[in-house]
């Protein structure tokens, strides 16, 4: 990003009080290795933003830069309209974490083991404040742990510790809540229910939150908007639907969901590939690869099939649905995610059809 673009961003935020977090040109190196590079993110007040990327992409470092546990090499960070870190100009300024009004929920929760649940939650509240007990009680009530105030952290289950960590972060009423892989320490079973609870708690509190995760399902199901990060840079920001249906690159497409790419010849709104004629979401021309998600491939019931074009090679049965690998008569293979009913077996002859539109990318290689 150029300097002009960066200052234009800074201008905008002054005009737009609805931005809870604004990051521009953020960069950080560890031992001369850039971990975060020229990063820009904007989060609106009341929004839940997910920062999604593979492990080692710099997303946790970004979170720690926002919280103030690391100092940026370049760029600015503004929280609630206040500049908390500015490594851009000559007047270098980095606020310490305790002055940023940011609540953090750590991956391992980092509950203070020597303090009770109530005292953990009260930790960030100013001492001597009159309604301190009331605020602790309110925060615990908000996370559904009213009866647990006197417990010690090691007497709680993983899900309860998670909610105490959230209550502790919410109690001082911060401008921004940061969550670092908050569900990775929970069992798969618990994860889905806790995820929903956390979203409802954040919604009810009207909190603005940034969530870091490497789990695309978690990001898509929880967040209002998702920023996808590869190698220290944001490659695409958008709603979950946008990311899933209109990924900006093949890599994003493959990262946020199951994707397969087929060579095709595009001409305007249509392209022809091994599966026949496919509508395109965005017009293109020439040699392209089209992305088809497995659930976009439909099987025409055998009773109606007039001209089968593929043989079922293998089947992965998941219960709620199944994924079939189809050997096309033309030589290639594709995967189709179809309903779990219908008694399809390997060896069956089937006819394929396309649901929805495909997305064209420049031919790889």
């Amino acid at each position, binding site marked *: 990003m150029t300097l002009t673009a960066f200052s234009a961003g800074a201008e905008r935020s002054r005009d737009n009080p609805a931005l809870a977090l604004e990051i521009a040109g953020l960069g950080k190196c560890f031992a001369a290795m850039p971990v975060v590079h020229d990063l820009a993110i904007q989060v609106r007040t009341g929004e839940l933003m997910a920062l999604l990327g593979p492990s080692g992409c710099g997303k946790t470092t970004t979170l720690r830069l926002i919280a103030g*546990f690391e100092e940026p090499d370049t760029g600015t960070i503004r929280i609630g309209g206040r500049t908390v870190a500015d490594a851009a100009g000559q007047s270098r300024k980095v606020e310490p974490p305790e002055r940023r009004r940011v609540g953090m929920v750590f991956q391992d929760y980092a509950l203070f083991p020597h303090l009770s649940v109530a005292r953990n939650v009260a930790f960030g509240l100013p001492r001597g404040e009159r309604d301190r007990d009331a605020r602790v009680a309110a925060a615990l009530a908000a996370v559904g742990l009213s009866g647990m105030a006197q417990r010690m952290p090691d007497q709680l289950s993983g899900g309860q510790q998670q909610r105490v960590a959230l209550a*502790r972060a919410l109690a001082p009423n911060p401008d921004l809540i940061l969550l670092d892989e908050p569900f990775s320490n929970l069992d798969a079973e618990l994860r889905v229910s806790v995820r929903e609870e956390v979203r409802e708690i954040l919604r009810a509190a009207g909190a603005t939150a940034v969530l870091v995760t490497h789990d695309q399902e978690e990001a898509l199901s929880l967040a209002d908007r998702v920023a996808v990060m590869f190698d220290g840079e944001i490659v695409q920001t958008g709603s979950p639907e946008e990311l899933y249906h209109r990924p900006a690159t093949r890599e994003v497409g493959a990262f946020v969901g199951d994707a397969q790419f087929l060579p095709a010849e595009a001409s305007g709104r249509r392209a022809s590939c091994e599966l026949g004629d496919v509508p395109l979401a965005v017009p293109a021309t020439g040699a392209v690869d089209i992305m088809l998600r497995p659930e976009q491939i439909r099987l025409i019931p055998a009773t109606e099939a007039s001209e089968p074009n593929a043989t079922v090679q293998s089947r992965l049965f998941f219960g709620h649905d199944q994924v079939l690998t189809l050997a096309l008569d033309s030589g290639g293979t594709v995967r189709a995610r179809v309903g779990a009913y219908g008694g399809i077996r390997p060896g069956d002859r089937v006819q394929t059809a396309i649901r929805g539109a495909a997305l064209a990318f420049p031919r790889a290689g």
Partner: protein
Amino acid sequence: MVTLPPRAARPFSFFRAHAPVHVSHRPAPPAIVWMPAALAALLALLPLAYLVMRAANAGAGFWSHLLRAKTLEIVVNSLVLAGAVSLATVVIAVPLAWLTTRTDLPGRRAWATLGALPLVIPSYVGALALVAALGPKGTLQGWLEPLGIERLPSIYGFWGSWLALTLFSYPYVLLSVRAALRGLDPGMEEAARSLGHGPWRTFLATTLPQLRPAIAAGALLSALYTLGDFGVVALLRYDAFTRAMYVQYRSALDRSSAAGLALLLVAITLGLLVVESRVRGNDILHRLGSGAARKARPVPLGRWKIPATVFCATIVLLALGIPVLVLGGWFIRALRQGAALDGLTGAAFHSLTIGLWTALAATLLALPVAILAARFPGPLGAIAERVAYLGYALPGIVVALAFVSIGVRTPFHQTLALLVLACVVRFLPEAVGANRLSLLQVSPRMEEAARGLGETAAGAARRVLMPLAGPGMLAGAALVLLTTMKELPVTLLLAPTGYDTLAIEIWTAANDAAYGRAAAPALLLILLSAIPTLLLVARDREQVAR
């Protein structure tokens, strides 16, 4: 470089295993941390620096003195003793470790605890017990005199020293091998059995090779213990390094040749420590692969139960029973004569005073080094920590001689302050180790959480770090207190005239063959030293039970 004796450094697992921990990249440490840490490191370097300067400034006479035949004799004496002791400790400790961990030996938990307890007997107290039992005017002779036997074979010299050092240092091998046996995957033995090996071949082909690093590490530790020990060889009059240095210092006040011997001993010690860390570096022989380890099925001893019990009982009787019984006997006899407690309270008070000051100073001095090592990973912390651990490579008599010589030229000569300073240098490693471990057990996320909730760096240290790490640091200070109270050579050489401690009481009484007078302070010291070891054993059990 110099490393700690094996110590259970378990990762913090308060909630559950930490998922991939984000590596902290922190700015350089503030001056308030690194400046006192540098001071501690300089202090720790002082004895060695003195010895090197002394050797460098000495004339040609120094080297000719060092290279004479007597020196060679001392070196050979010391190495032969160290070799014989470590061999004997392995022979005693490996079967004892196996019997108490892997068999159905009756009362094996009790044997395990009793077998490790001789560690708490200060070596000179053990030597005193040996002399009081078998020496001239000792218990055995007292029993035999009516039968007309006037003289016993002398306990002094090589065999007495060998016996005493073996009996009081085999627990190093025992603990090391026991830990390794516990970490072994029983699946490997089962695999060997299913591949057609009988029980003996399984033991020789799979179990023993996996124990080898632990045996080697333990044996090296007892060799190091032997080389650095002053009390046994001095009381039993065997010309090893430490006694030779003391004799030269006392008789001729010849500081240069004592310094030369000290340098030679430090070089040998450092060499052994390097070997030890190599040996221990390779011992990643635990379970590979995942899944919870199963407990091994105990080996049924059958008719070997009785010989095995006799073996354990013999070791415990010799190493623990004899000192306590003999000293107890002398104590009762002295009590009847009404002289048992003379000077005991004064000496105990002096020992306690030195111990408390040393514990306080060592803990305070160790704190910045520990903070540097635990919270600011980098070359500075690594260097400071290594230098602080140098005390482990310096035998007590070496530290004592260096500080005596340094002190003579200062107004601190013959003061309590100099004695405490020398003790601090000697026991700094223990304090640094305990403080560092306590700090490492508190995840840096805890402090970050506090910062994120609006607390300053100092506030986070006060409200979160100290409550969590404090108890461990206090335990470290208590350990330094007790070790200082047991200490002999530094106290002996540096205590102001007339400032007698428990250790000095024992030393002079033993040399005068006044066993009755030595009994009370010796029993008191054994009792004091047993406390932290029993706590350690209790914690060890707790961890096993988990």
